[in-house]
Structures are given as structure tokens and as C-alpha cells.
């Protein structure tokens, strides 16, 4: 019984949150990795792109809520998501046309594009705060729990409860669908293959008659969709606050780099590596330990390795370790 309780507690506080968070990071990292692979720079504006897409979705969600449109037990935000993606697409294509294309034509070095993307980041950041404000915004509705802790306890008779939030399940389901679509697109369609070819060998892609401007445009479309989905899922699961999205940049980049920049499979793996490390290191293991260990060696303290305030240190340390020992990441990506 104690062992079961330990597993339930572990699932409730570590596994389920880490899987949800990992999915969100994976979607974010996929966007970063695609831009790195195809446009060949690290896009620092990605966190704020996520915030922008999420903001449009939230605005449409609010409008839908006021108009009485909803999805029953599912959050209305899912219905508003396509509009958020469209808004984000418009924003990114406009940014590309006005800013990135100029530097592409100059054949600017990646480091210059990184600085440019920081400029874009500040502007997007400002726009988002200007429109929706810097504060926390609530937009989640529908059924909050798939199984609440109380129901679970009643069902199983265990003293530990396992709460599964609707947002966690939606996060995982939507992430799986998004990733499946992305891989199908990259591996099975002509346009997707041309994107991989362009990422693999730009000169040869040009010789093969692949139009770089089209590849770039399709990349932005996909990145907009991924970023918006990631942003909305994160907002549903936790909350929407522009500054949090800016901060997400670190774990997202860590995920992409740990997996191997430019490698989509790596981005997903990296997302889960970072999420699980962050959650397990900042989790107070006292409860689980008390169930499993005999009383004599059970910890007195919280058995928490690192306070949650320092969770970003985890991404940072993993990032450092990977860059020191395996700069191309777990999967064969490009060296940074």
C-alpha cells in the first residue's frame, strides 16, 4: 500500500506535471530548432512569439466567452487557437518581410541575426504588454479536472490522490498531434522534404531549383503554428503572463541544444529531459521517501534539492554540461 501511495504521489507531483511541461517545451524547442536549421540563427524572439500567439488566442477566447461560444468541458481556447495561429502567422510574416529579409539579402552572419532577433524580441514583448498588459491573465474554462484527487482517493481507497487536470491531458494530446503532423509534413511531402534539403545543404538545394524564399515562408508558417500552440498550452496549464514567456526562452533553448540544434527529434527529447530534470530537482521528495524508505532512514527535511525559485538554474547547468561534453547535443545536431 505504501509503495502504491509512493507511486501515486510521484505521478501526481512529478510525472504528470513533467510530461505536460515537457510537451510544452518540446513544442517551443521545435520552433527554435526549425528556425536554426533553416534560417540559420538562434531566434531569441521565440518566447515572445509564443506570448503573441497566445495573446491573440486569449483575446479571441474572451470574445467567444462573451458571445457564449464554448466547447463544453473543453477550454474555449482550443476553438480560438486557429485564430491565434493566423494572428501569429501574420505577425511573423510581417517581421520577416520588414526585418529578417533585409538581413538575408545582405547574407548577414548568424550572430548579427541573433542580435536582430533580440531587437524583435523587445518589440514583440512591448507589443504584447501594451495590448494585454503585464499581469496574469485567466482564460481557461471548461472542466478543470479529468480526475480530481478526491475522486481518485474514493475510487482507489489510497491515502494519496492523483489529480489529472484537463489542461495536462489536452497539452499531451495536442502536442502529439502537432508533432505527428510536423513529422508527416517534413518526411512525406515535397515541400517538407525541400525544407529538409535546404537545411541540409543550402547550395545544393539552390542548384536543385528549391526556392529559398518559399522555404523560409513555409518555415515561418510552421513556427507560428508551433509557437502559438506551445504558448496557449502553457497558458492553459499554468497561466498567461508575458514575462513568464520571456523567461521560458532559457529552458526552450536548453531543450533545443540538449537535443541537438536543427534536429526535430532532438528538440522533443530535449524538452522532456529539461522538464523532468527541472521538476525532479525542485520537487520535495519527503512524501515519496516517507512511503518507500523505512522510518529509521526517512528524511526529516523536505528532501528538496533546489528551491523552485531556482528552477532555471537546472536548465542552465544541463546546457553547460551538454555544451562542454557534447556540443552537438544528444542527437546529431549542428554545433553551436
Amino acid at each position, binding site marked *: 500500500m505504501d509503495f502504491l501511495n509512493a507511486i501515486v504521489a510521484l505521478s501526481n507531483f512529478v510525472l504528470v506535471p513533467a510530461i505536460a511541461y515537457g510537451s510544452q517545451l518540446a513544442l517551443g524547442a521545435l520552433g527554435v530548432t526549425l528556425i536554426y536549421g533553416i534560417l540559420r540563427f538562434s531566434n531569441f524572439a521565440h518566447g515572445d512569439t509564443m506570448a503573441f500567439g497566445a495573446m491573440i488566442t486569449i483575446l479571441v477566447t474572451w470574445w467567444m466567452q462573451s458571445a457564449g461560444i464554448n466547447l463544453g468541458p473543453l477550454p474555449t481556447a482550443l476553438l480560438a487557437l486557429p485564430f491565434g495561429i493566423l494572428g501569429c502567422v501574420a505577425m511573423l510574416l510581417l517581421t520577416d518581410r520588414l526585418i529578417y529579409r533585409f538581413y538575408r539579402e545582405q547574407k548577414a552572419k548568424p550572430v548579427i541575426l541573433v542580435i536582430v532577433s533580440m531587437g524583435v524580441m523587445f518589440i514583440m514583448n512591448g507589443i504584447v504588454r501594451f495590448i494585454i498588459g503585464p499581469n496574469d491573465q485567466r482564460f481557461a474554462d471548461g472542466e478543470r479536472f479529468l480526475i480530481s484527487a478526491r475522486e481518485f482517493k474514493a475510487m482507489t481507497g489510497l491515502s494519496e490522490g492523483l489529480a489529472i487536470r484537463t489542461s495536462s491531458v489536452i497539452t499531451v494530446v495536442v502536442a502529439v498531434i502537432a508533432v505527428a503532423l510536423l513529422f508527416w509534413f517534413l518526411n512525406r511531402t*515535397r515541400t517538407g*522534404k525541400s525544407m*529538409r*534539403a535546404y537545411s*541540409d*545543404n543550402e547550395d545544393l538545394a539552390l*542548384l536543385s531549383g528549391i526556392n529559398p524564399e518559399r522555404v523560409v515562408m513555409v518555415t515561418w508558417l510552421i513556427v507560428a503554428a508551433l509557437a502559438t500552440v506551445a504558448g496557449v498550452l502553457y497558458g492553459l496549464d499554468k497561466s498567461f503572463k508575458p514575462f513568464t514567456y520571456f523567461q521560458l526562452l532559457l529552458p526552450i533553448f536548453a531543450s533545443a541544444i540538449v537535443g541537438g540544434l536543427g534536429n526535430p527529434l532532438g528538440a522533443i527529447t530535449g524538452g522532456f529531459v529539461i522538464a523532468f530534470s527541472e521538476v525532479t530537482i525542485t520537487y520535495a521528495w519527503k512524501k515519496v521517501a516517507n512511503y518507500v524508505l523505512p522510518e529509521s532512514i526517512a528524511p526529516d527535511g523536505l528532501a528538496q534539492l533546489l528551491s523552485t525559485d531556482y528552477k532555471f538554474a537546472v536548465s542552465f547547468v544541463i546546457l553547460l554540461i551538454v555544451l562542454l561534453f557534447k556540443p552537438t547535443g544528444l542527437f546529431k545536431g549542428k554545433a553551436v
Partner: protein
Amino acid sequence: MSGTAAKATGAGDAPFLIGDSMTGGYGKGPDILHDCTIAVNPGEIAVIVGPNGAGKSTAMKAVFGMLDVRQGSVRLDGEDITRLSPQDRVVKGMGFVPQTNNIFTSMSVEENLEMGAFIRRDDIAATMEQVYDLFPILREKRKQAAGELSGGQRQQVAVGRALMTRPKVLMLDEPTAGVSPIVMDELFDRIIEVSRTGIPILMVEQNARQALEIADKGYVLVQGRNAFTGTGKDLLADPEVRKSFLGG
């Protein structure tokens, strides 16, 4: 081959592809080519040889539009294409296999061929079959990542990729660079086979002797100028050429 060599000597009539008295260099840099002429006709293999730094690759790149031709012209099938970009020349029917980075390493052999045919909108299955017939090893490895293949197989992928557009002329930049002598012989055999399908082949070669043996037409360049021109046989027999480039 002796039959085709005789045909090649008739250089008087307008060749299918010609870089005519080309002078030029990269960007704003100095001229590398000086009044250099290179031409090839259907069914022929034309080979550019010469010492290191003679401008062999540069001459081929000039024909393909990768550097500024300041004087002279490039004509394909009578049409002046001097001002076209390399991409446009591909559309016009020129297939080019660069010396390095000439395959998509992370993609499968089949995908490499598909990407080669990117500009085509019709059914490419028949062309792909032809390429597989020409390079049977590629059919065997078609699902494998091209980057995992051996040097000789990679070159076959590279040539196969260029053939997928059904080019009117094929240009190879040192196709045997970095492969073993045995593989080199096999590659030359394949190149002869491609040429038998009627496609004119223009290639740059480091291995002058072997290349001239299969060449209908040879160009020996020295410092960006035509030093000797003739059939492969003539050049091999020429004591001057033998002494300076073929080691006696």
C-alpha cells in the same frame, strides 16, 4: 570510343555547349580565366585537365554561371546564357555536380534523387528507374541516408541527383576526388555509360591520364588559359603534354 573521338575533331560547327573565350574571376577579384574556351557536344566526354591552380574548376564554374564572365560568352544550344544565374541554367537543362557537398547527407538516397527532380512537375518514377539501372547499388541503398554511404557511392548519388532533371548536358567537378583507384575506374565506367545515353559530359579531372583516356575532347589549362586542346588520344600522345602534365 575511337569512333566518337573522330567526330569530336570536327570542332568547326557550333558546339552544343560552349564557354567561348571567357575572361573573368570571382566577385571583384582579379581575372582567373583569360580568353578560355571550352565546348562539348552530344555523345562526347570533354575533360578539363591541368596543373593545380590552373583554373580548371573555375572554368567549369564560369560555364555554369557561378562567377562573372567579363568577356566572352556562354552558349547552350545556340542560346546565349551568359547572364543567367546557375538556378536558371539548371532549368535550361544544365546538370551540375559540385566537387564537395554534392549530396544531402541527412536524406535518403531516394529523397536525394527526388530533390534533384524538384523543378520537374511530371512523373519522375521512370527517370529514377533509369538512374537505378545506371547505378544498381543505389537501388539497393535507396532507403539509407546518403551520408552513410561510401565515397564512391556518394558520388553516384551526386551524379544520379543531377541526372534527375533529365539534363541536356552534365557537368562534373572532379567526380573521382578522394576515392580509391578501383572506385575511380568504376566511376569512369559509369560516366562513359551516362555519355552513351547521348548526354554531353563536361568534367574537370585531377587524374589527367585516366581522364584523357576516356575523353573525346581534352582541354589542358595553364594559368587560366587554353594551353593544349585536342582529342584525348592526341593529348596523351603529344610529347609536350606528356612531359609537362603526365609525368613523361
